[in-house]
Each structure stands twice: as structure tokens, then as C-alpha cells.
């Protein structure tokens, strides 16, 4: 029940018989991030799922390494790695149905790939090619979003629209800890709760917004505590525990699909790499901090669980690694040459119909290119 519904019940006679409000407790996150691996909850976990997650994590880690390597070879202009955050990336992709939608930020190409988008298409933007290399409608993945938190209202609007059309669709939106400070975060969560839109917000709290540590970003007990202020459920999860992430997100998606409204999930994780390949993380943090997190690595945690429970053997581990290598090799191979862009396409998609003004500019560029080609021909 909301304030407003209670307002009727607020008897403005002195002293007003204020009806006790709904207990906010169910909206508040637990005091500790939810964990599965290494706890009793792991007993309940589906071994098949755990193995699937493991394979995806291993492949995801390799994907991150490969993409970073591609920047060194000049094949990618820039790459914001999600190394260390693979459990969040993979979890977000795996909990969705085909008809659902994923709203990634600029760091989330791994989630996009895990959802089924061709990695070459997912990386189009980061090559310096056109912004969105994939058809958003094919896998129901919104374009990678660079202006922070602006994708969140999009996710809410889409989920709301789907519900209005009677479609059983959930939207899952990714955002960073830094992005949670933006006004759009607030407005999106508020609209979602008021509309009871079937949307899940996953904050990957990786401790940093470029160089700015979380302590300079928020003074909140946790980011998940923001949920109660919108009247939605807040959940806190160990973002490096793939099984826990999967379980919490699955529950949130189910809740949304059932008409229960949005959930805000905060996943505690860590940005092991620098902000992007061109950032120098030593300027703002000590290596030792990174090291402590390597021991809480998502792959390590899951591998240990699988091994201890005899759910995987050395062959299984090798198979996962081999699959990842094959994947990386194919990616490397396919990224081995620069795409050929047609400059005339600058004008093609600005409007459905180019304006007369754009037609003039189109003609100007055509002339320039022709002249260029001619003089190149002449010089040859």
C-alpha cells in the first residue's frame, strides 16, 4: 500500500488515527549480500545450471581478454573490460526469455554476447564503426548506451508498453554504481514503481566510476537500500557468485513477470581491469586492493564449488577452456580486418526521408569524394 492509498485512511481528526503503514521491511535488502556458492544454498542448485554458468564464465573471461588484446592490435578503438564481473554479465543474459529485453550500458558487451548477439556485431561501436552493429529486434537487446543511466527509463518504457499490449515481456537493465547517481536513475525507478512495470534493474557495483570510489559516490548503507524509497524491492547479492546472481535475478524476473513490479538488485563485484584499456588505474588505486579480489574471483568460486561437489572434473574444465579458446580464435580471426564504411551513409539514416538540406550535403560529399578519387587516380 502506498502513501496515497493511506491518505484516505489518515483521519485528520485530532489526534488523527494514522493507520500504521505497510511494513517497509520486505522492500529492504538483507544485511549481507546473498550467496549460494560455499553455503548450504548450493545444495539446492541445479548442477546443470552450475556447469552452464561455469562454461559461460570461462568463455566470458576469454572474451574480455581477447577484446582487450584487440585494442593493442588496433582492431578495437577502445574496450571497457568486464573482467571480474562475468558473473553479473552472464547472469543477466541467462535469466531472460527470448521475448524479454536486455538494456546494456557501454561496459556490457559480454552480456550482449551471452544473450546471443554475434560478438563482432556487439563490438561494432568499439571498433569505431557505426554505433549499433546488431539489429536490436533480433535478440531484443537495446543499443549499448553510453550516456550513463539514460537507458533505464527506456527499459521502463519498453516494459510498460509491452504490458499495455498484453505481452508477457520483462526488461532487464544494467547500470553501474556511478550511474546510480544520475537523475535518470531516480526517474526511471520511480516511473517503474508507479507503473508497476515488469522491469529489473541490476546495478553492478564494481566499486568505481572511472577513478571515483564508491565512498565519494554515495553514503548509503547499500545501493539496494534505494529501492524502498520507490516502493520496490531491493536485493543485495554477491556479484561474483554466479549461482547467487542467477538465483536473485531469476526471482526478480519471475516477480516482474507475475505482475509484482520492479526490483532493484545490487551486485557487489569489482572492476579488476582499468576503466578501459586506455585508463591508468594505478593513478587511483593500489594493486593490493585488486589482489584481494582475485581470491574472490567468480570463476574461482564456481570452479571450487563444482570441484568440491564432484560436478566437474579436469576434463570438464579443459573442455570449457577449449571452447573459450575456439570462441576467441574465431573472434580474433573475424576482427582481423577493418570494416569498410561508405561515407555516403552519413546521410542515410538521419531521417526516414532525407530533408532537402541533407540531400544538398549528400551531393556536396559525393562531389568531394569523386574529386578525391579522381586526383588519386591521377596520382597513380
Amino acid at each position: 500500500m502506498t502513501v496515497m492509498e493511506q491518505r484516505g485512511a489518515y483521519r485528520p481528526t485530532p489526534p488523527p488515527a494514522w493507520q500504521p503503514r505497510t511494513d517497509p521491511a520486505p522492500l529492504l535488502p538483507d544485511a549481507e549480500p546473498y550467496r549460494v556458492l560455499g553455503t548450504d544454498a548450493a545444495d539446492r542448485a541445479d548442477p546443470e545450471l552450475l556447469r552452464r554458468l561455469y562454461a559461460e564464465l570461462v568463455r566470458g573471461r576469454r572474451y574480455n581478454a581477447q577484446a582487450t588484446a584487440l585494442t593493442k592490435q588496433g582492431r578495437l578503438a577502445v574496450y571497457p573490460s568486464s573482467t571480474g564481473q562475468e558473473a553479473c554479465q552472464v547472469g543477466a543474459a541467462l535469466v531472460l526469455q527470448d521475448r524479454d529485453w536486455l538494456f546494456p550500458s557501454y561496459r556490457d558487451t559480454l552480456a550482449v554476447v551471452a544473450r546471443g548477439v554475434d560478438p563482432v556485431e556487439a563490438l561494432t561501436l568499439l571498433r569505431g564503426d557505426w554505433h549499433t552493429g546488431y539489429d536490436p529486434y533480433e535478440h531484443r537487446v537495446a543499443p549499448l548506451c553510453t550516456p550513463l543511466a539514460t537507458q533505464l527509463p527506456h527499459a521502463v518504457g519498453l516494459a510498460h508498453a509491452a504490458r499495455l499490449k498484453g505481452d508477457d515481456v520483462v526488461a532487464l537493465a544494467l547500470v553501474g554504481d556511478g550511474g546510480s547517481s544520475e537523475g535518470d536513475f531516480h526517474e526511471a525507478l520511480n516511473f517503474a514503481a508507479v507503473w508497476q512495470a515488469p522491469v529489473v534493474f541490476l546495478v553492478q557495483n564494481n566499486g568505481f566510476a572511472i577513478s571515483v570510489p564508491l565512498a565519494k559516490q554515495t553514503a548509503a548503507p547499500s545501493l539496494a537500500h534505494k529501492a524502498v524509497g520507490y516502493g520496490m524491492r531491493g536485493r543485495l547479492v554477491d556479484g561474483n557468485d554466479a549461482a547467487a546472481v542467477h538465483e536473485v535475478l531469476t526471482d526478480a524476473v519471475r516477480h516482474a513477470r507475475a505482475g509484482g513490479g520492479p526490483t532493484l538488485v545490487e551486485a557487489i563485484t569489482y572492476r579488476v581491469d582499468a576503466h578501459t584499456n586506455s585508463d591508468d588505474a594505478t593513478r587511483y588505486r593500489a594493486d593490493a586492493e585488486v589482489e584481494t579480489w582475485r581470491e574472490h574471483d567468480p570463476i574461482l568460486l564456481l570452479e571450487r564449488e563444482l570441484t568440491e561437489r564432484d560436478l566437474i572434473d579436469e576434463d570438464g574444465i579443459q573442455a570449457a577452456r577449449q571452447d573459450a579458446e575456439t570462441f576467441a580464435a574465431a573472434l580474433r580471426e573475424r576482427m582481423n580486418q577493418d570494416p569498410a564504411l561508405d561515407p555516403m551513409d552519413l546521410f542515410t539514416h538521419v531521417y526516414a526521408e532525407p530533408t532537402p538540406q541533407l540531400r544538398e550535403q549528400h551531393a556536396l560529399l559525393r562531389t568531394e569524394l569523386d574529386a578525391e578519387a579522381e586526383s588519386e587516380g591521377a596520382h597513380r
Partner: protein
Amino acid sequence: MTTVAVRPASMAQALTRALRDAMAADPDVHVMGEDVGTLGGVFRVTDGLAKEFGEDRCTDTPLAEAGILGTAVGMAMYGLRPVVEMQFDAFAYPAFEQLVSHVSRMRNRTRGRMPLPITVRVPYGGGIGGVEHHSDSSEAYYMATPGLHVVTPATVADAYGLLRAAIASDDPVVFLEPKRLYWSKDAWNFEEPTPVEPIGRAVVRRSGRSATLITYGPSVPVCMEAAEAARAEGWELEVVDLRSLVPFDDETVGASVRRTGRAVVVHESGAFGGPGGEIAARVTERCFHYLEAPVLRVAGFDVPYPPPMLERHHLPGVDRILDAVARLQWEAES
């Protein structure tokens, strides 16, 4: 009882009718904004829509403009055609990032795969005695943003025709509604409203051979009045109503200026960096050798919109327009 189909209608009524007809014709058309539901909008343009089509089709949103436009983006991604109302010109600014970084670019970004058929209705301009933030002319911001159409009606018929066209457009349209014309009335056929106007065509509202007044929106009636007054001075002024700022109708404007050889651009927006600079520059580029005098601009001053008690000194009026016409170097004529 007989219905008189042709009767006086206000621009606000024509806009309401356009929304209603668009919603009736297409279930994907959704109206959203602050107070658009039960209240029918602060200018009553959405009056009755929530009742007729339900609150899910005409929705009172939380009070957050970026959220309104941002969720509209998501709704459009899913195939709806949102018509967003910004309550006043200056209250569209919180949505600026969504407008510039997403609404205007999504089609281009996705190589044509994800068009955003969103109409953003913005009541704009002054002359209604509004206090600060309620009278801005913000069209310069939208004109400078590739990917947007920018449209503004000056007549009751155009209000209907252009709004229908905006909603029908597969591209985002910033639809600027001149506040002080909301209650101006024209005879209008309620039975068969004006057809949908294609976006991008200017229209000659009055013919004349002495000089061209190039204008739009709230300044159109002022220019018509000025043209009437100019006859006493011996000038036959042509008045071109642009209707669409983007795309810009170079053809109609150029043809007029080539005929008259002189032009004044008139708008409420501040002159500096305002629409008039663009218009004067492109007219000059295209008609240089036809021009007897530089294209002049009559505009609001380059000051924050003044308080109600001073707005008449700020807004371009008949006298200021005629003074500019008088400066069009008529000596050269003799």
C-alpha cells in the same frame, strides 16, 4: 437539431481534435505528460482524452521530464507512438539529454532499424503574461539538433493538419505550440477537419511585391498585421509562414525573396544564435544577387525573457517590423 459544421474553433480545440482523431485511428498512439489526464493539461489541450481512451492511453506521469521522454523512448522502441506533453517551454530542459542524445539519434544509431516516432508537444513563446520560465522561445536548441523535425503552426487549420502529420511521422517531431495563439479562433470545419499537412512546406500567407516577411508560429499574425499597416506606407509585403523549421522550405522562401528582393525575418526568440541567423544566412546564400538590401532580423532582445509587465517591449511588434522594413535601403530603388 442541425449541426453547423463550419464554426469558429480555437487552436487549442483543433489540437485536441487532432489528438483524438490520431488516437482513434491508431491504438498505438499514447498521450503522456504532467496533468494531461484528469485535468486535461494546463492548457486543456488533452481535455477528455483520458475519459474517452482510458488512463493507459492518456497518462498522468510522475513529475519528471527526463523520465517522461525517456520512458517514451522505450515505449516507441516497442512500437507505440507516444505523444509527450512538456508543460511549458522551459520545463522541457530537464529532458534535453534524452532528446539530443537519444530521441534525435536512435534511428541513425541503429542504421534505420529502430526509428522513434515520438511527438514532443511544447507550448512555447510569450505574450500571455507568464512569469519566468513560462515564455521561452526554445526553437533554436531544437533546430541545432540533427535528427529532429521542428514544426510550429500559426493557424487553427495548420494546428490540426501539422499535429496529425507529426504523430504520423516515423521520425521524432518537436511540435511547438504558440501559447498565445491557443485561444485564437478561425472558422473551421469540425465535420471534415483539414487534411494532414505534409511536414516541410512553407506557405505564402499574403502576397506582396515590396519585401518578404519570413516568420512562423506566434509571429505570423503580427506580421500579417504589419503587412496590413505597411500599405499605408506604400509597401506591399509578402508574408511567408514557415510552418516547419526543420526541414526548411528553401524553395518557397527563396522564390518569394527572389520576387521581392528584400526580406525581414521575424521571430520572438532572441536574435543572437536564434533561428533568424540561419534563415537570413541561407536566404542570402541562395538569393544574393536578387537582394537589394541585407536580410534583416526583427526578434526578441538577447535577454532572459522579461517579466509580464515588460514583455510588450521585448516582443517584436508591428512598429519594430515596419522600422526594419524602412531600413531595407529603399533609396536604391529610385
